[in-house]
């Protein structure tokens, strides 16, 4: 069951294609990380799903409703925290909570108190006098206290100190487990996301490049290093799944995006002649490294296309 479904969604701002033919499903009760470099189209996608922008083509379904027709009833089930959001800075934390509380019939005062305590926020302090991180905490607090079904986070770690990040991640994991929340999170802090996310989606230049479970992604990416005995050993061609193929001194180095425990050695030895499996060094990658490899690959691909 999907909490969010994107079907052939496109959005264009004047001459820029922000999102192009996006087809994606965000499963219910899971944490999905939405990754991409700056300007890839992450925030636009999030705004489209919340009805803050209207797509030019395609259809977005959010909790069973059209994203363009999200009303108060659905907004009571959706939490949205963004670094770009303009908070009512003239309010105190308490005033913010007092304002939000009557709007949600599922507001949990105990959870509010717990989060207030955990985030160490002074209720009497005005939002404009809080640091950026504290403002983000206040926003999170006002969004999580009503136990939403869908939590949409756009750069939620921005400005948060490591301790709060840790607590936030713990809390989010805990609540997702307990309450069955669906979390759609966009972030540049990939290390944090790796610990959180069940699934990873990656967007580049408005196009979805991958959308799969974190485990599967981590399993299929490997960094491979092959020693060269002579210049003639350099292969003329190699599989498309080998990304960022480069010759670094006496080594061939690349990222295998289709690594498979059983079949990989045979692939490598067939392409690079005269090497034995013992010569090959294989290393698994973190999500951050995979992201960088993919981002470089897309960048090179785009450069090649331009050439």
């Amino acid at each position: 069951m999907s909490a969010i479904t994107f079907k052939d969604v496109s959005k264009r701002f004047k001459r820029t294609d922000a999102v192009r033919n996006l087809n994606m499903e965000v499963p219910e009760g899971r944490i999905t990380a939405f990754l991409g470099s700056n300007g890839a189209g992450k925030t636009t996608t999030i705004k489209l799903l919340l009805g803050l922008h209207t797509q030019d083509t395609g259809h977005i379904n959010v909790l069973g409703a059209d994203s363009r027709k999200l009303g108060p009833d659905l907004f009571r089930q959706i939490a949205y925290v963004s670094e770009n959001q303009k908070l009512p800075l003239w309010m105190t934390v308490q005033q913010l909570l007092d304002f939000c509380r009557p709007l949600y019939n599922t507001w949990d005062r105990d959870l509010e108190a717990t989060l207030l305590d955990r985030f160490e926020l002074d209720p009497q302090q005005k939002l404009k006098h809080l640091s950026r991180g504290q403002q983000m905490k206040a926003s999170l607090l006002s969004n999580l206290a009503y136990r939403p079904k869908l939590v949409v986070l756009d750069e939620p770690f921005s400005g948060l100190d490591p301790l709060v990040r840790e607590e936030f991640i713990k809390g989010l994991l805990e609540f997702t487990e307990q309450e069955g929340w669906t979390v759609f999170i966009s972030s540049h802090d990939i290390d944090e996301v790796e610990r959180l996310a069940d699934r990873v989606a990656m967007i580049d230049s408005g196009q979805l490049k991958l959308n799969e479970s974190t485990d599967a992604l981590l399993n299929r990416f490997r960094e491979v290093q092959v020693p060269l005995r002579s210049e003639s050993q350099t292969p003329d061609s190699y599989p498309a799944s080998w990304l960022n193929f480069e010759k670094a001194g006496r080594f061939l180095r690349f990222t295998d995006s289709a690594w498979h425990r059983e079949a990989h050695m045979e692939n490598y030895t067939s392409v690079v002649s005269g090497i034995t499996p013992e010569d090959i060094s294989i290393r698994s990658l973190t999500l951050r490294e995979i992201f960088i490899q993919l981002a470089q690959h897309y960048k090179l691909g785009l450069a090649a296309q331009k050439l």
Partner: protein
Amino acid sequence: MSAIFHLLKKDIRQHKLLVGLFLAVWLFLLIGHNLRIFFPITNGIYYDLLRYAETVALWLFLGLCVNLGYRNNPFNKDHFFATRPIRLPAQITAKLLLVFLLIFTVTIGAWLTTLNQGLPSAGVIRHYTPFFFCGWTVVMLSSLWRTPGSLGFGLLGLFFIFVTALIAVGVTYQYLGLIQKSLNGLIFMPLTFLFSSLLFALSLRIGRPTHPLCIGLCFLLCAASIAGSCNTPARLTYAPEGTREKVFTDSDQSHFWISPSSQSQRTVSLNAALAKRGIAQGYGMKTIAKRISLTHEGDELLKTENQWSSDGSSLHLNLEDIMPFFDQLVRPEQIKFLPKHEYSSRRKHYQSIEEIKIPDGVLEGNLDFSVQLSHQVHRYERLVSLPLKVGASADIENKKLTILKIEEDSHHPDRSIIWVKWQRTAIESSHPRHGNTLYFATSETQPEIDKLYPSKSSQAGSLDFNRFEVVGLSLRNNWRSRETEANPRDHRLEIFGWRYLGIIESPAETLTTSVDSLFFDKTSYSATPTYPVHHTMTEKRTEND
């Protein structure tokens, strides 16, 4: 409903500084007005202060409305409340409700003040109603912008569009003859608000708040409304105690006449004297009011300069023309709202100025109304005279003028139409030149040269056939009596051709009269002031000629 009040509470809290300042200024005004009940204050600074406070309150109110509309508006998708479960109508209603509450508070204060002062309070609501519609309009228009920069530039741009549209609509109004139509101005402010709401709704529908089509259409409509509103004569001014009983019970007092009959008489006798001396010259006199002022014990309180010209030898100043001048006397301490008064004049309905307000302090002394006048003497040269009968002819500058037909105008019983044939002997320019303009008149109208009828087709050499009309009761009577005779050969009537020579303007002179006699004294209408005519100068010029 609870959502609206919840949002209203939030809006008040959000704009507490502007709301607080506005209410503080309003409180100051309320105390200031009511202080007069207990203390007879005549100090001008006190009243000036109250006037400035009113201006400050107005700007604070407009600022508050702009802020109220712009903050958390539905086009600003980045604000925190954009994804909260709040319905758009509730958001808008809360904002409009706040504006209404503020104006309601102010109206209640003004109403209580009028009651305290023992003045009629019926007009208070009518006076303040446009303010809340104006506030609502500003709220709606300010809701269309995403960023403070776009708001600033947008409002500036809209101002120019609006002014242009206003001028365009004003010109159209004039062209279509809608000026001075008596329309109720209170209709226009709600209409303007309605158009702003339409713009807002249209923008929401299109998803682009600054769509040029929306802006263009709605601002044209807004301008049409406001142009219509401005077109209506001003209705709300203030008056001192008892004014209502004294003024405008008689509609004739809505006009101020200077009727210098002596001047006309002198002009008549002057022309007669010149005619006797065989000098073929005629003179018409017009009185021009160039400057009007109000003085109190010799001190000039107000002045305005304009050009009110008469249509004859008497000067007629319509009260509506000079009323903007008196409106400047309005002071906040004298609240009196008087009912609308309408009167009919020359089959046209006008909405008169109902109230006049004169400051208390000023009423203690003599308040004089002065008009600076000058006289324009229009000079004519008599070229020809011929008996008013069919077939009569005369030579004028190598051209022959013949009367072809004389008939009564079926549409205007007091008007006769004389057809003449104008035979050219030489080719002349068809472009009219001022000096060549010919004016025709009967002998009966000759002494009152101002009433000479300048026929459009009487430009010398421009047409072969001319038709001109002679207006005058005496002519009609004479003509009819002549028609009843069997043999219509009465040659007592003559037609004269006059050439216009130009204007001589006399030095300015000032006529002063008391304001009491101007507005309050019923006898002032007939007992109009007289003043000397500067005919000595005219005579000098005549002799030189």
